[in-house]
C-alpha cells in the first residue's frame, strides 16, 4: 500500500507542467529581467533595484499597499463574520439563499463592480445624496480617491473570497458542540468566542489570506477608485511596464509586491495558528 502510486502522480503531471510553464518559468524570467540596468535589457546589474529600493517614496508605497491590505482584511472580516453566523443559524433553504447572494457579485466583472462604486461613492452618488438628505453633513463627503472610500469598495468586491471558505468550514461545524457549550452554562457570547470562533478559524484565516492577496494587487479597483492620489505598488508596475517600458524597474516592483504580499499572507497564517493554539 505504501508503494508510490504511479497513476496518481501521472494525473497531477499536466497541472504540474502547466504550473511550471506558466508560473515558475515567468517568475524566473521576472527575476532575470530585474537584474538588468537599462530599459533595453542589455547591461546586467542591480541599478534598478538600487534606484527602486533606495527611494523613500517606494517604501511609503510598500507600507501603503500592505496597510490597504490590512484595512481591507479587517473590514471584510468584521462584515463577513456576522453574515457567516447568520448562515450557521439558518435553515437549509435560507443557507442556499445566503450562498447565492454571496456568490452573486462573482458573476459580474470586477471592472463593472468597480465602476459601479464610482456611482455610489461619487459627489452626487447614492451615499452623498442620502447624507445630504438626512442633513448629516453640510456638503458632499469626499469618498472617492480616499483610502476609506477604497476600503469600503474593496470590502464589497473581496467579500466572496472571505465568505466562501468561511461558510464551507462553518457548515461542517458539529452543532452538538454549541449545544454542549450552552448546556454547560456558557452564555451565547462565551460559546461564540470559545467554541464557534476557534473552530471556524481555519476558514477565516484562509479567507483573510485570499482577501489580503487580492486587495493588495487589485490594480483596477485601486486605480479607478483611488485615482492618482493613492499610489500603490500595482500602479507603479503598470506605469513602468506599459507607459515608460522600463521592464527591469517594473520587474523589481513586481517582485517587491510578490514578497510583500507573501510576507503578509504568511503573517496572517502565523497569526491564525497562534490564536488557534491560544483559543484551544
Amino acid at each position: 500500500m505504501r508503494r508510490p502510486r504511479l497513476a496518481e502522480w501521472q494525473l497531477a503531471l499536466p497541472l504540474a507542467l502547466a504550473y511550471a510553464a506558466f508560473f515558475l518559468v515567468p517568475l524566473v524570467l521576472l527575476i532575470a529581467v530585474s537584474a538588468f540596468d537599462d530599459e533595453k535589457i542589455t547591461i546586467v546589474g542591480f541599478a534598478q533595484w538600487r534606484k527602486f529600493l533606495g527611494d523613500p517614496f517606494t517604501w511609503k508605497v510598500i507600507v501603503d499597499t500592505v496597510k490597504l491590505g490590512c484595512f481591507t482584511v479587517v473590514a471584510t472580516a468584521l462584515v463577513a463574520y456576522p453574515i457567516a453566523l447568520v448562515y450557521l443559524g439558518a435553515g437549509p433553504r435560507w443557507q442556499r439563499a445566503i450562498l447565492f447572494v454571496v456568490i452573486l457579485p462573482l458573476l459580474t466583472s470586477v471592472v463593472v463592480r468597480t465602476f459601479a462604486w464610482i456611482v455610489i461613492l461619487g459627489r452626487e452618488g447614492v451615499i452623498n445624496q442620502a447624507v445630504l438628505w438626512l442633513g448629516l453633513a453640510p456638503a458632499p463627503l469626499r469618498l472617492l480617491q480616499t483610502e476609506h472610500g477604497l476600503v469600503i469598495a474593496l470590502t464589497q468586491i473581496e467579500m466572496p473570497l472571505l465568505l466562501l471558505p468561511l461558510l464551507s468550514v462553518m457548515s461542517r461545524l458539529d452543532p452538538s458542540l454549541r449545544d454542549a457549550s450552552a448546556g454547560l452554562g456558557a452564555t451565547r457570547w462565551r460559546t461564540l468566542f470559545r467554541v464557534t470562533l476557534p473552530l471556524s478559524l481555519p476558514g477565516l484565516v484562509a479567507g483573510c489570506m485570499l482577501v489580503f492577496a487580492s486587495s493588495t494587487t487589485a490594480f483596477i479597483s485601486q486605480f479607478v477608485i483611488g485615482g492618482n492620489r493613492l499610489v500603490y505598488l500595482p500602479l507603479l508596475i503598470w506605469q513602468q511596464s506599459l507607459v515608460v517600458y522600463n521592464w527591469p524597474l517594473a520587474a523589481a516592483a513586481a517582485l517587491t509586491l510578490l514578497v510583500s504580499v507573501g510576507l503578509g499572507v504568511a503573517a496572517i497564517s502565523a497569526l491564525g495558528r497562534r490564536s488557534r493554539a491560544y483559543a484551544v
Partner: protein
Amino acid sequence: MGTRANRQEKGEAMSERRFTRREFLAATAVTGTALAMARPVHARGSVTAAMYPGTWEEAFRAHVAPALKAAHSVDLEMTPLFAVDQIAKAQAARGAPPFDAFVLDPGPRVTGIERGLFEKFDAKRLTNLARLPSGATDEWGVTVAAQVVGIAYNPKKLPRPKGYKDLLQDPWVSRLGMTGFQTTYGTVSIIEIAKQFGGSETNVEPFFVEIRKVLSKVAAIGAPASMPALFQQGQCDVTYTNTQTVATLRGRGVDIEFVKPDSGAVAFFTTMHIAKGSRESENAYKYFDTVVSAPVQAALMQPPNNFIPVNREVKLAADLPMASLDEMAKFVHHDWAKINPLRAAWIERFNKEVAK
C-alpha cells in the same frame, strides 16, 4: 511496477477507470498539437489589427470592416489594445507580432520607431494618398485621424474658462478633474499648463510648482479610463480632454462644452503602422486605404463615433473647433521625440507630488 490489470488485482485502484500510459501519452499529444495549432491563423484575405477598445473598436466594426470586405474581400479581425499595450505586446513578441497593424498616438509611435517595431511604409500604394493632407504619411505609416485637445467644462455648474491658467484658479480648480502623464492628452495638457507659467515642452517644473499650491482643492486626480465616468457623475466639472470624449458624453446627455483655450488647442494625429514581421502587409495596405477613404472617414465622423477625419474630401462637422484641416496647422503641436525620454521622470515626479 505492475500493469493496470495487476494493480487492480491487488486492490490498489481508487476508481474503476485509470489512464494507461498509452492513453496518457495520446492525451498529451492531442493537447500539445492543439496548443501548437492555436497560434493566430491568418486566413486568406484577412488582416489582424490592434484597435483601441471602446468607441474606436465599435466604429471600426460598424464601418471599416464592411467597407474592407466589400472593396477588397479582406476580413478585418481586431485585437482591442491601448497604444501603450500594443507596443509592450509587440516588443514582448520579438519579431512574431500578434497583429498586423498598429493604431497609435504620437508618443507610442515614436517608441515603436525607436525600437524597430514597424515595417517600412510605402505611401504610394494608397489610392487615397492624393486626398490626404501633405505630411499625413511618412516612411513608417499613415495618419488616419486627428485629435484636438482642449478644456471641457459643465456650463450649468461653472463659468466658461478662458484657458489653461484658469484651471488652477477658483472657481475652476475646486471642480477640476486631472490625469497624469500616462496618456497623450494628459501629457500635452500638463505641458500646456506649464507653458502658461513659464515652462516649455521639455520643462514642466512650473506646473509642479503651481499644482502644489492648489493640490488640496483639486476635485479629482483620476485614472484616464475613469475620467468620463467621474465627469458624468459630477465628481469634477472641468477637465482637459479631446473633442471626441466631449461629443460622446454630450451624446449621452451630459452637460459638457468644449473650449478652445486662449493659448490654442492642441492637435495630434493617430497613425497606423504595419507590424514588423507581419505576413499580411498586402492586406494591411488595403485596410489603411479603406480607413482613409472618404465614405469611411465621413461615417467615422458621425455621432456616436465623432472622429476627426483626415480625408480632404470630407466636410468637417459643425461642432469641431476648426472649419478645415488646414486650420489645424495653427494648433499647438508637440515633438514627442523630445517628450518621450523625459516622460518616465515626469510620471515619477507626478506620483510623488500628488500622492497623499
